[in-house]
């Protein structure tokens, strides 16, 4: 985790100005993101059937994101170790597929508010069929940092350059 991501973590900790509380469910996260300082909603369509997008979420989510990551950063005056556990959840019900990504800091970050089971919500991606060949994605995501994770989820939706994100970045 680089310093930029650490900044994002800190800003996520502040979350909504004047309100030190974190969303405790994916639905609360969806509702909170539009008004949050460090998060945004991104909507796009992909030329891919819904079933394929859902299938990729189901395969890649657990494969790539069920991880505990240890990163170190060092300067002449400091040495920092951050250990983070990510938890992906994929739900496919009817014509909706959801990918939730939570993160829990095991070491190196102080939590300032109640943490949901599995960790703070970091990203939620919802997929809905538009036509037989098109799928709409609503991506609730950080607006700063975590670019590799966001790009990976977009790739899973488009089906291009499908791989796992290096969560140490």
């Amino acid at each position: 985790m680089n310093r930029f991501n650490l900044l994002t973590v800190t800003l996520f900790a502040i979350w909504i100005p004047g309100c030190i509380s974190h969303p405790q469910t994916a639905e609360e996260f969806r509702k909170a993101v539009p008004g949050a300082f460090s998060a945004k909603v991104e909507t796009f369509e992909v030329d891919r059937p819904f079933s394929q997008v859902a299938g990729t979420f189901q395969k890649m989510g657990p494969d790539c994101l069920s991880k505990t990551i240890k990163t170190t950063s060092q300067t002449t005056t400091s040495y920092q170790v951050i250990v983070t556990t990510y938890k992906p959840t994929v739900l496919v019900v009817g014509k909706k597929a959801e990918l939730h990504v939570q993160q829990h800091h095991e070491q190196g970050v102080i939590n300032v508010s109640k943490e949901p089971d599995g960790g703070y919500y970091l990203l939620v991606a919802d997929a809905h069929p538009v036509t037989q060949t098109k799928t709409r994605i609503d991506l609730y995501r950080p607006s700063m940092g975590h670019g590799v994770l966001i790009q990976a989820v977009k790739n899973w939706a488009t089906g291009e350059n499908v791989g796992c994100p290096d969560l140490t970045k």
Partner: protein
Amino acid sequence: MTALATNQAMGKPLDHGRLALVMVSMCTASLLAGCFGSKTYPNTLDKNLRVHTTTDSGSWFSRVRAAVDIHGVGEDCTLDYEGTVQLADPKMDIGIPSHRWSYLVFVFANSSFLANTSGTITYETLLKPRAGSHYEVAVSYRDDMYHVGIRETSPNQSTSREIERLALRACRSSSGRK
């Protein structure tokens, strides 16, 4: 010290600078070996895995190294670390036991010189090679994304099939192991 200070092969003494360099190199090598705690995989079995590796950190100021740790898997799903193969070459042949579960841990270690940061991410899978079968493993790291894919080619067949990743927890399910 006399023995160290004399380059016997060359038949002339080492100057102090070269001696210091040799000693620093030896110390660094031993420290690295101790820090990483890894041993080289013996790789003495018939080669049944061909690993194709491509890595690109995307920056002049960072580096990514790939390796695979090979573990044997006991009846009770305990792991027995057998060694590490550094995937330093684009194509490497590895021999792992057939008809027995192995646990392969592909390790991508990145380090940034400017930011002075480092991190390691892994991709793990169980694999039980079939005797006579050959396995092509594609390992890639590019644009901060990594991918590991394994394909199996059975004897006397020209086509191959993709091997699904199998997590270690599958070992505990008897149906997953038989």
